[in-house]
């Protein structure tokens, strides 16, 4: 069983938003909506602040409250890689999952259903990288199988210090940030 993860190197990331633009065109995300986005976190005071820039998206949690709360089974964990997906034709638009996600990663598509990052599963099944990963000019984004100890992502997580977002929310997120 594969377990897909994303590993993002915040040291290399410059926050250029190419990932966001690529997601827009690849997945036809409507104007005014984001499946992924850039967060900048500044700590400390001038002239010695610290800045972490992160490309954020659905964390494809292993303990996904959005899936648990879905009344129709539209939100589900896909057998391939543990990717959290939404079946548009099952979604009634109750917005429970939007409220359930501590990352606010979901939104209501103008057509009514809930939409979010899919880890570009349609590309991954063709042997391609997710669109965001494939365009990143700084090569700060990595996608792969955590179950495969030889994969890029496994090696990076083994070698480098990293964190995930809001671990205290208890969702077991699977997008990791190298520091």
């Amino acid at each position, binding site marked *: 069983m594969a377990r897909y993860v994303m590993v993002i190197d915040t*040291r290399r990331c*410059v926050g250029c938003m190419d990932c966001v633009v690529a997601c827009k065109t690849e997945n036809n995300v409507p104007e005014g909506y984001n499946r992924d986005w850039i967060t900048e976190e500044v700590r400390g005071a*001038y*002239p010695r*602040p610290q*800045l972490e820039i992160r490309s954020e998206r659905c964390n494809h949690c292993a303990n996904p409250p959005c899936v648990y709360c879905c009344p129709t089974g539209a939100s589900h964990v896909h057998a391939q890689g543990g990717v959290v997906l939404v079946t548009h034709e099952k979604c009634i638009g109750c917005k429970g999952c939007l409220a359930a996600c501590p990352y606010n990663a979901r939104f209501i598509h*103008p057509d009514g259903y809930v939409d979010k990052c899919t880890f570009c599963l349609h590309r991954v099944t063709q042997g391609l990288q997710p669109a965001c990963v*494939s365009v990143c*000019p700084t*090569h700060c984004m990595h996608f792969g199988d955590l179950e495969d100890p030889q994969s890029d992502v496994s090696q990076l997580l083994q070698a480098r210090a990293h964190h995930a977002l809001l671990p205290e929310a208890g969702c077991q997120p699977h997008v990791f940030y190298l520091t």
Partner: protein
Amino acid sequence: MPALSRRRFLKISAATVLAAGVASRVTRTFAAAAGAGAGTSGVHRIPTFCDLCFWKCGAIASVRDGRLWKIEGNPLDPLCRGRLCPRGTGGIGAYSDPDRLRTPLIRTRERGEEKWREATWDEALDYIAERMQRIKAAHGPESLALFSHGLGGTFLKHTFKAFGSPNIAAPSFAQCRGPRDVGFRLTFGEEVGSPERTDIENAQCLVLIGSHLGENMHNTQVQEFATAIGRGASLIVVDPRFSVAASKAKFYLPIKPGTDLALLLAWMHVIVTEKLYDADYVAKYGYGFEQFAASLVPSTPEWAYPQTGIDPETIRATAREMARYRPATLVHPGRHVNWNGDDAQRSRAIALLNALLGSWGREGGFYTPASMDVPDYPYPDYPKPAKPKVDNPDHRYPFAHEALTTGIRDATLTGQPYPIKGWLVYATNLLQSLPNQAETIKAIQQLDLLVVIDVIPSEIAGWADVVLPESIYLERHDELNVELFREPFVALRQPVIASPHDQKPNWWIARKLAEKLGLGAFYPWQDIEEYLAYRVKEAGLDFAVLKQNGLIRGPRQPLYFATGAPAAFGTPSGKIEFYSPQLEKAGFDPVPKYVPPVAGPPGAFRLLFGRAPVHSFSRTQSNRILSDMMRENAVWVNAGVARRLGLKSGDRVCLKNQDGVVSNRIAVKATERIRPDCVYLVHGFGHTSRGLRHAFGKGAGDAQLITRYKTDALMGGTAMNVNFVTLEPAEAV
């Protein structure tokens, strides 16, 4: 003056805009209906190269079921290495931009009355040709000037030269990289070029002075920057703002704006007095080192401290850090360097620091670029202009080796040394790029003809007599891209999709205009493909392969002195001129000297500006994909200052400069990422062109507020970081 800022610069006629208006749909996605490939199914991938900025990365556009779908980097391209920047990726937004110019427009009333009518191409070009001939008859062909930015201007320049005018300029010199090029020419006899010959990829230590790589998305540089960071290269960042690059730096030097030259001199003082420089390199290639070293004696870190605000120990530590990694220490020359008026000399100091470190011609420093040999098309000889160029009379700025836009503007205003009566403006928004908009508008009022060729209704288009709508890069052929770079290549721009309306490619416009001017003989080729195929064939390359792959790479040439690149310097001495007799002869400091910046009015903040990764100049704010990334800019204010002023992030203010000019409303970004004595804006926002319906009034423009500028005495560059603003509550204005 304040009235000017609120002036409605442009309104394309209701007929044009409204008829063109995109039907408002609740769901607007970015897939764009295609003209050419409509009806065809499946995905077609067509290679071309990008035009969202001047880097010209190789791109592959995907057309799915006849609709433009996405654009990705061409893996064969050495510039982008298969990965575009966000602007390139968002390039389809330029195609689907509903605010695009659609048809030629002719002004029907006085300039500024914003009355237009649609015209046919024949009508518009006849109008232009007739007035060009009239100006030629009255004043000579030299009285027409062409402002042109980017590769797309090639054929218009050709038509202009055939017409007999030598006055062709771009803001990229006097408003952007000019001082850097002059500083490096004076020192090494060569420029750093574009794309810059910086070997960031292999640098062990990288020094950025005001250069905000990462926010400034020059693709290859940013990729190499990330590689260097990933490798753990030592990074020293000097900037009044805690830039993205600063956040990755080993040393961040929060310098007082305008004092960089003092820091550079102090660094060189340390390196020279502690004998940390590359003595062999300096001995072998240097000229005038003794005089140079002697002049540095007073420039101690202790002297620089009160100027720059950087403590002497940090200056010493960073100087030693640079020396530790030399020659793989790259002090980046920057790109937009018109800051304080001492810019050519400051750039020269950067060149000298690199020379001390021995990085020019060395791995991890500056490599030696090469290009493919692609012969020009054999055109007839141009007529020789009867008058010299108008922009720099009597070589007032002796080291200006390119034409000065502001020089042409001055001549237009004063009629000296001879009158300029017509402007043709291609793909450059002079009202946003030149300092002091009032001067530009006054100059425009002296003109008999103003033609603007662009893809969007920019501010300058608002003042034009004739506006010509150009096809965007995805819809046209262009001149070949034959660039001096790390490895030589030739790249092709070719149409991916048909123009949605009555837009035409620049080559067609230039060729048609030449015909109307009776200069048809200068266009022996009928079609651009014929022209391109000829040049490619003459270069010994296969045009079919070029069309197939988008580019052809040439054999790599030696990059460094050590691997065989010639260590030749185009200076008068043939060496690296630590001491410049050229400058001395022209009456300038032969070794750069520091002049403290002029302080602003009390309580005012120095206005700084820069780039965002998702926008190019003022050209992309109506691109719906890119505007979705960043719809408006915010004014960065130090968090402590903001608290003192009772402002928090998101509050709206207006900026008021020292001359009383008031900006559009703009949101505050209260942040710990900037010094308390300056504020910062991303350039290109605050559009006043009503044709840019989507971008109109979003954020504030630095161009509005740059009423003052300081001209570089060496080369005529216009320094723009010499304006000061206060923050006024938005409702009070």
